[in-house]
């Protein structure tokens, strides 16, 4: 849509930048409000967060003010520069993820040909920030948390990418818009009314993707780097106030981004049955459709988070290397065979 307006490059970029600065914090707020304050509160029968202001909305503002007014503490032994940089690195990886997420035929910050590859690469940047935080805090608990996060990344980036490979093979493109189009124009047994959401053909990949994303987001049952009851917060144990808020926003922003990736790759993205793929009206309706699908996926992410206990680090590694990666490889082989045969 922005291309239609034919603005100069710098104007276009600043509009996109402004949008990104509004959209990303909003997405974390939506997730925190809907799932942390509402869903978790109802699941755990602690109804306090529902009572502040109309529908509990003031709770968000109260939390934000609480974080902002806290003292910014740097531990005496900490490596000050790295300590301060770490939350910014984590948040930057979240911001970079949003670059390729499409919400309509033209509603995308940058339509990269290697969108999937870019998203996977950028999402793993956050672990760098976590390692930095863990090391620079000069705290043993933080160090253990940071190292666990690094171990987890190596184990879980692989199944994540391998799961996505199935989708890429089937769509014959790495472009996220191309993947949406492939699903919109696809057919299941000759019926093309709802297109071909890849969750139907790539269900195994979807499951692996969701499990690996859970580990990538350090959500229960894979939240060993944080582990409140063992490592008392892990890598962010020494962070207070605004710096902790950055970690917090990054966590939920990335959760939103991964839910968006899952809905683009497996649930058909912004396309609505009955419309042409390049219909301009989808630029208006697309974001709404995407939001609906994202919230559906995020619901499952948080449902699991609030229900399951956490695994031990060695059990997690075993699960990744012995179950998820072989399954993902099988999925790729099967997808390849079906692609060649049909």
């Amino acid at each position, binding site marked *: 849509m922005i291309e239609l307006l034919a603005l100069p490059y710098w104007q276009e970029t600043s509009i996109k930048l402004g949008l990104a600065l509004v959209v990303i914090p909003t997405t974390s707020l939506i997730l925190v409000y809907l799932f942390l304050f509402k869903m978790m509160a109802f699941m*755990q*029968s602690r109804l306090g967060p529902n009572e502040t202001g109309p529908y509990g909305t003031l709770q968000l503002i109260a939390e934000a003010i609480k974080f902002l007014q806290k003292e910014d503490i740097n531990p005496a032994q900490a490596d000050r520069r790295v300590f301060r940089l770490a939350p910014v690195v984590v948040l930057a990886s979240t911001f970079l993820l949003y670059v390729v997420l499409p919400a309509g035929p033209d509603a995308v910050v940058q339509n990269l040909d290697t969108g999937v590859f870019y998203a996977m690469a950028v999402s793993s940047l956050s672990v760098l920030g976590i390692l930095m935080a863990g090391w620079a805090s000069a705290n*043993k*608990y933080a160090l253990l948390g940071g190292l666990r996060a690094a171990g987890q990344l190596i184990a879980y980036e692989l199944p994540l990418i391998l799961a996505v490979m199935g989708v890429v093979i089937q769509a014959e493109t790495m472009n996220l818009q191309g993947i949406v189009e492939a699903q919109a124009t696809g057919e299941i047994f000759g019926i093309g009314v709802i297109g071909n959401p890849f969750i139907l053909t790539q269900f195994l990949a979807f499951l692996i993707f969701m499990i690996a994303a859970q580990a990538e987001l350090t959500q*229960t049952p894979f939240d060993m780097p944080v582990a409140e*009851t*063992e490592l*008392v917060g892990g890598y962010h144990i020494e962070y207070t106030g605004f710096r902790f808020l950055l970690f917090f926003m990054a966590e939920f922003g990335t959760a939103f981004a991964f839910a968006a990736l899952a809905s683009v790759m497996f649930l058909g993205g912004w396309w609505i049955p009955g419309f042409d793929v390049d219909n301009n009206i989808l630029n208006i309706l697309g974001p709404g459709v995407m939001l609906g699908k994202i919230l559906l996926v995020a619901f499952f992410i948080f449902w699991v988070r609030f229900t399951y*206990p956490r*695994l031990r680090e060695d059990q997690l590694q075993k699960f990744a290397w012995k179950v998820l990666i072989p399954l993902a490889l099988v999925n790729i082989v099967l997808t390849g065979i079906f692609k060649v045969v049909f």
Partner: protein
Amino acid sequence: MTTTSDRDQLAYISSQAADARVNVELNTGDMTLNIGPQHPATHGTLRIACRLDGEQVIMAEPMMGYMHRGYEKLCEVRTYPQCTTLINRIDWLGSFANEVPFILAAERLMEVEAPPRAQWIRTILFELSRIANVALFLGDMGVQLGALTPVFFAFRDREHVLNQIEAITGGRFHPNFDRIGGLKDDIPKGWIEETKSVMVKMRTFCDEMEDLLVGNEIFQTRCRGVGVIPADVALSYGMSGANLRASGVDWDLRRDANPGLAWDQIDWRVWTHPDGDSFARYWVRLQETREATYIVDKLLDGIPSGPIMAKVPRIIKVPAGEAYISTENPLGEMGYYIVSKGELGPFRVKIRTPSFNNISVVPWVMKGVYVPDVITILGSLYFILGDIDR
């Protein structure tokens, strides 16, 4: 009964030797990690000094005394009725159960016996405080393993039990209701029916915990085979209560050495588990909580009529002598050794608390486990800080 075989020990020693060789070659030093005194898994101020090799614990040593309040000494300068106020606060989650053995010991010295009705109500309150106490453990174990939800269910449902305790004693946490020779008051009107409906709720809670945790694959992988305490080790460390029964020792003071309460009047069973791991400890406690609700139900059906107070003098002087009475408290064997010189207060009180002995097994059981397992084992041993440092 499970015992460590020679083969297991040899395998363990050789694996340790292999690890040590790698450490010498790579020159990896170990790290001291203080778990506590301020740590969410220690429920207070227990400190566990661990020496870590990576994430593996080489040596763990519990350090107690951060919350020592000197109750044994304080009891010496108080009269017998005043002592129960202090004793309430030893195991603060099951307060009423703390009072009973002390009062029973004093009664034995005075040679009075509470009337049957008082004994039955005592037993009911004893079991209610067991349910209130252990219910919290059942939820809290989930939190130790990362599942947040169960503990909120536990707090929600424990409230019903506390309401019943409050209805009869006037205190939610520290009833201070037991008197030498009986009880302070009789039960209020309608209490029996209400308690029965609460027991139904608690059984539903136990079913919920079974669905949420016991049946959960992740919970099982985290707990099964973690922190195995064989029966002989458990006995040699003086462990008691559910921790001992989870190691396969069929030993319950309520059945084996009943000091006169109403447990022998009804049918109930003692639950044991042969494994001795964290899962067994959780499972045994879950079954015991459910059993306790049935015990309360049966006791409520058969409360005898009569007075609730025996004839005792207004000013209580306990004749000279010594007595030791222990009961099966929510955490294990709790006993009071009272020495009296015939005065208003005891000359000396020795309090034997279960958590102190249960936690002493920590250095033995935590050799070679991973850091997350430290939390699992601590959680499953289930101690109350006030019960360790009294």
